[in-house]
């Protein structure tokens, strides 16, 4: 009877130095499938190799011997000793192997729980193996059902959309206000670490026209260079603030640097276009009353932390809901597998005939 066996390692079980020794670049996959099938003696194969995990998915009639042979195959490939590699390897046999792929594909086993990149990577791994003829009935159905389950988890629990850190919440709020961040101007007032990471996230999502004002010119210029921004001196503050759609403050100033009166004037000159301000400074860099102005959205570090905490709770609930969905989907696969294997197994009458 064909069973699913998985052997591999991930960011939890192995450090990056080991993961990179075991990684299979995509151009080697085609030659890998026949090699695994011959050396290990499995019928179907797929290889999932990302920066966070390396896993071999197989379907085999020899469930007892396959795990050890797969271990040996990976150890050979790493050109390291067994004692170095083996502790990092995990092995799953059916039904845990099925559960594992479903969990991985849904992003529940990822470093950032719920991320969707892995779904694409699993799809790519499956489609490649299928196009090379390395998969058969069991892996085909397994991967299709896993991808389908991941889709259900994503739409039903919203797990990938939950932001539970101050950095991601601040960027998501910017998108809540503006939709696309493409073409939006950002002003960085002060270049603290949190401000830098927020700027990085904003830049990834398309913000440009980045202006940086900071007391230390060296640091600001370095940051400007990294993200294609421009450094300005402190006396440009009001002019640059009026041009910005997003302002991130993180200076060590002891009194407010953006006052209600200033922002009121800025809003007039920007024809009331929405303005999003993140105040990461302690003491606060922006007068609280600025948040009362129409079309101004002001969030300080506590506001962001509160939202992140609340979302974290939701994330836990979404994980539980996702696990329930996956449990159901795994059952579906196992039922299909049961029916399929009993249909394909020779009946007692056929066995008697053969003998």
């Amino acid at each position: 009877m064909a069973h699913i066996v998985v052997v591999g390692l991930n960011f939890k079980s192995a450090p990056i130095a080991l993961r990179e020794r075991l990684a299979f670049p995509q151009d080697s996959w085609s030659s890998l499938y026949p090699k695994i099938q011959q050396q290990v003696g499995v019928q179907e194969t797929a290889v999932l190799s990302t920066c966070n995990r390396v896993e071999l998915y197989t379907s085999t009639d020899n469930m007892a011997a396959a795990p050890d042979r797969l271990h040996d195959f990976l150890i050979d490939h790493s050109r390291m000793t067994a004692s170095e590699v083996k502790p990092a390897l995990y092995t799953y046999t059916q039904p845990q192997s099925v559960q594992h792929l479903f969990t991985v594909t849904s992003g529940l086993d990822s470093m950032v729980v719920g991320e969707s990149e892995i779904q694409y990577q699993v799809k790519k791994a499956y489609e490649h193996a299928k196009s090379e003829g390395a998969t058969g009935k069991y892996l085909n159905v397994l991967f299709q059902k896993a991808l389908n389950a991941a889709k259900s988890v994503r739409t039903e629990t919203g797990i990938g959309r939950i932001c539970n850190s101050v950095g991601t919440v601040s960027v998501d709020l910017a998108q809540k206000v503006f939709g696309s961040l493409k073409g939006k101007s950002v002003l960085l007032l002060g270049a603290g670490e949190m401000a830098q990471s927020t700027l990085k996230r904003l830049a990834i999502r398309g913000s440009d026209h980045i202006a940086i004002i900071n007391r230390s010119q060296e640091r600001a210029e370095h940051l400007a260079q990294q993200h294609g921004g421009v450094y300005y001196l402190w006396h440009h503050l009001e002019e640059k603030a009026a041009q910005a759609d997003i302002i991130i403050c993180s200076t060590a100033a002891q009194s407010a640097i953006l006052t209600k009166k200033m922002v009121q004037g800025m809003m007039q000159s920007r024809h009331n276009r929405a303005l999003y301000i993140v105040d990461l400074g302690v003491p606060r860099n922006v007068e609280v009353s600025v948040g009362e102005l129409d079309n101004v959205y002001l969030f300080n570090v506590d506001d962001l932390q509160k939202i992140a905490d609340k979302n974290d709770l939701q994330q836990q609930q979404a994980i539980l809901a996702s696990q329930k969905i996956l449990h159901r989907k795994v059952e579906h696969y196992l039922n299909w597998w049961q029916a399929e294997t009993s249909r394909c197994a020779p009946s007692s009458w056929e066995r008697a005939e053969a003998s």
Partner: protein
Amino acid sequence: MIQIHIIFTLLSYAIFLVACLAGVLFLVQERLLKRKQVGSWIFRLPSLEVLDNLNLYALGLGFIALSIGVLFGFLGIYHELGYWWTGDIKQYLSVGLWGWYLIVWWIRLRSTLRGKRVALLSVLGFTLVLFTVIEAGMWQSSAHPYVDTRV
């Protein structure tokens, strides 16, 4: 002529409904953002800027459709009766509605008001639409009996 009047007027009402819904979604989200009550479900809704733009386009399109509808209404009356003004309640309401949306659209185009306030005007505008449709329909002497009063 009357058909064009009916089609464009109803079309404008449908577009104003879109503007109103965009306005409601804007107001709800704006309030939650201001109060920092941001649940993850809020991220499934369109962004404030998208809603504000949708409101602007809907107001513009709706206003154009309403203008054509009202114009053909008047032309229809003139064609049938030989004069422009019948004193029908619906006529007053339609002209009022047209004036209201002219002002709202103009305000939004001039950018003197944006976001919350325009969203609010848009929602109020649609209540005026509803009032126009329902009230005029109930009015027995109206030339627009949406409710058949002959029975």
